[in-house]
């Protein structure tokens, strides 16, 4: 198969060192995906009362592991691998130093291992290490210091990774004065600038407050302050997950459809809008927090609504590019062209299905963003219903689908099985339809998120349509399908990487867009300017609320005494797990 460069055929042939880094990142991401998905299965069965093999107190250890391993480790390691691939591919040059690339990967991995040890420590109470503080780790619930230290190392690792891509860009710029930044590199750089701006919040929270506090160096922290700093980072991280998925929809999906990207300039505008708007909105997660004035919440709400714009534009471009591809393949009619798309290709089908569910997730997100209707669904099961459609499908399914196209380029092998891949992405779609629609509806009935028990002693939940039992069955069924889907995915990836070298390897060629970058104003490439505007917007949105939180909430350190999260003692997780599984299997057999 010929490539644009006409030289060596695949990515792994031309950039073996980069392919190694990407593969290492993907390996960590996939291991995290496997463990996190297993925890998800146990939770789905436990809280719906279908199958209970753990103690309810251990549920929160699993929930922490599920959140951190999937939403942080899987997504961000995948992103780092993908960005490393995209930078080398689009700049057509290797990274500046392989040793440096391994250094950031090593730091991120070490941090991940430390945080994971702290989380899993929750299963073994006698160990004295635990981090049952969930994905959001709100103080004053306190985790073991190695959880926070691991987290800090991980974040610094991502900063160094970003620097790797900026260094590549600088070197490219030296040899290519006056040229437009290649689209994929442009997307990598703007995403990383957003990440630098937004991780400052979490870095300050972890390094200046949570680490010294968990080590006992300071007695207390201001709970509203650390919570606000968390959400300063906690919303932009949503876009850090989403940006690689968008990048695949903009640059890979059109090719898979058989066509070309609709508009390069609009793609750049979309990424810049995310850079500008995604950080000054975090307070929209705090509509129900006392101690923050209504006006600040209103500003966050307005910004959030404008953040819909780049997503709506993306929806247009993705569909337009697919339609163009379908027409290149002979598709005709108003809607009949849909049939001409390559639905047998799991990479294409996975991304297309992810896009469909993202539209549904986008609508439930608009409800979350609505300052007043939010009161009805805040902290109910509606919320995980929503983000299982966004990060759990738009992002995770796009990443899995993308892997079917990317991994063979990195290994030089053929995808082990396209039919299994196709089954896998369809199972994910169906599983998520069951689980997330039931979660949304359960949330409307008032069922809370993040709880191990499906019911309470003194009252019942009421649904307008259907029964609570039916909702529970849907959640359990959906969760089971999702877990099986992950098993199929990992199996396919494993056998792909173990396969023999292919005679006709997948190349990484991407066609030129219909409207190229030359049609867009040069100011779009002025990254310094956009960074400046982004910082100003953050200062405008956050200075006053943070100042008033510090002033009114007892200063920087006032307010919350530490509450370590120790689990009821004497529970050996492994024995509970094994005996529980055996006894429930026996029940089924009998």
């Amino acid at each position, binding site marked *: 198969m010929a490539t644009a460069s006409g030289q060596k055929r695949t990515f792994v042939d031309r950039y073996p060192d980069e392919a190694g880094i990407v593969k290492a990142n993907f390996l960590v991401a996939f291991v995290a995906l496997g463990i996190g998905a297993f925890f998800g299965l146990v939770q789905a069965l436990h809280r719906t009362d279908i199958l209970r093999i753990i103690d309810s107190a251990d549920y929160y250890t699993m929930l922490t592991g599920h959140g951190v391993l999937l939403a942080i480790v899987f997504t961000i390691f995948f992103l780092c691998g993908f960005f490393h691939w995209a930078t080398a591919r689009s700049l057509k040059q290797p990274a500046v130093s392989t040793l440096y690339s391994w250094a950031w990967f090593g730091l991120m991995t070490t941090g991940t291992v430390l945080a994971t040890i702290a989380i899993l420590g929750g299963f073994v109470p006698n160990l004295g290490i635990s981090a049952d503080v969930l994905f959001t780790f709100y103080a004053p619930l306190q985790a073991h210091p190695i959880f926070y230290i691991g987290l800090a190392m991980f974040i610094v690792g991502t900063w160094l990774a970003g620097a790797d891509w900026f260094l590549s860009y600088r070197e490219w710029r030296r040899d290519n004065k006056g040229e437009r930044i290649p689209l994929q590199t442009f997307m990598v750089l703007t995403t990383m600038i957003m990440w630098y701006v937004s991780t400052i919040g979490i870095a300050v929270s972890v390094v200046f407050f949570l680490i010294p506090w968990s080590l006992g160096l300071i007695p207390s922290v201001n709970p509203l302050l650390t919570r606000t700093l968390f959400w300063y980072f906690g919303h932009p991280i949503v876009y850090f997950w989403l940006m690689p998925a968008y990048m695949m929809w903009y640059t890979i999906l059109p090719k898979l459809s058989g066509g070309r990207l609709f508009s390069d300039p609009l793609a750049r505008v979309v990424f810049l809008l995310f850079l500008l708007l995604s950080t000054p909105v975090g307070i929209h997660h705090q509509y129900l927090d*006392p101690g923050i004035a209504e006006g600040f919440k209103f500003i966050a709400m307005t910004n959030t609504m404008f953040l*819909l714009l780049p997503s709506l*534009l993306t929806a247009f471009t993705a569909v337009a590019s697919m339609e163009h591809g379908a027409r290149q393949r002979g598709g005709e009619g108003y809607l009949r062209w849909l049939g001409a798309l390559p639905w047998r290709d799991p990479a294409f089908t996975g991304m297309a299905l992810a896009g469909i569910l993202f539209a549904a997730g986008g609508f439930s997100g608009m409800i979350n963003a609505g300052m007043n209707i939010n*009161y*009805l669904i805040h902290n109910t099961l509606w919320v995980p219903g929503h983000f299982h459609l966004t990060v759990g499908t738009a992002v995770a399914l796009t990443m899995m689908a993308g892997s079917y196209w990317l991994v063979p380029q990195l290994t030089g092998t053929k995808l082990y099985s396209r039919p299994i891949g196709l089954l896998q992405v369809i199972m994910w779609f169906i599983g998520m339809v069951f689980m997330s629609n039931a979660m949304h509806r359960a949330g409307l009935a008032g069922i*809370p998120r993040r709880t191990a028990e499906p019911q*309470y002693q*003194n009252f019942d939940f009421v649904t307008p349509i259907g029964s609570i039992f039916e909702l529970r069955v849907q959640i359990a069924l959906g969760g089971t399908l999702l877990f099986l889907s992950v098993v199929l995915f990992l199996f396919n990836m494993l056998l792909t990487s173990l396969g023999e070298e292919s005679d006709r390897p997948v190349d990484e060629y991407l066609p030129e867009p219909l409207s190229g970058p030359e049609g867009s104003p040069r100011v779009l490439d002025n990254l310094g300017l956009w960074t400046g505007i982004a910082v100003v917007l953050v200062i405008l949105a956050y200075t006053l609320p943070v100042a008033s939180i510090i002033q009114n909430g007892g200063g920087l350190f006032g307010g*919350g005494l530490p*509450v370590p999260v120790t689990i009821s003692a004497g529970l050996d997780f492994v024995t509970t797990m094994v005996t529980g599984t055996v006894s429930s299997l026996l029940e089924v057999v009998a």
Partner: protein
Amino acid sequence: MEIHAYEKLWLALALVLIVGFIGTITYGAAGVGIEMIDDKGGTVDPATLDEHPKFGDPGVEKTGENQYDVYVVARQFVFEPGTTEPIRVPEGSTVTFHVTASDVIHGFEVVGTNANTMAIPGQVAEFTVEFDEPGEYGLLCNEYCGSGHHVMEGKLVVMEQSEFDSWYEQQQQEGEN
């Protein structure tokens, strides 16, 4: 910069949608007067909550004709009042809740309604609810607060006026003794 005609139309519709959303919410806040949780509840010292004039002995307090204040403390894993004793209010009353937490961050949700707030140590969430019909409501903690989070529940009872009055009087007398 060249933008396709359909893309321009889409862009315009997207902006109309966004401005429309902001408009309805602004109307909800300014026109209909839907009240948000904000900073008007003030702050307290969570370490000395027991000595606080209101949160030291939290409960229901009559402040005017048909007007009541309810003080609630959330702590691992109970609401005071709410869990051992239900929160009692009379029908047709206007009740202002003052909710805080003494240890970690909790949630305070009256099931199936939009009476919902975070309870954060050091901060007081203040919001006003009107109760029209007598009935019983479930109350639960919707923010993870530790290994017993799932047992943290309570009840809110909207009583008939006469029933409430005799209960309230009895409470007052017990308080004086």
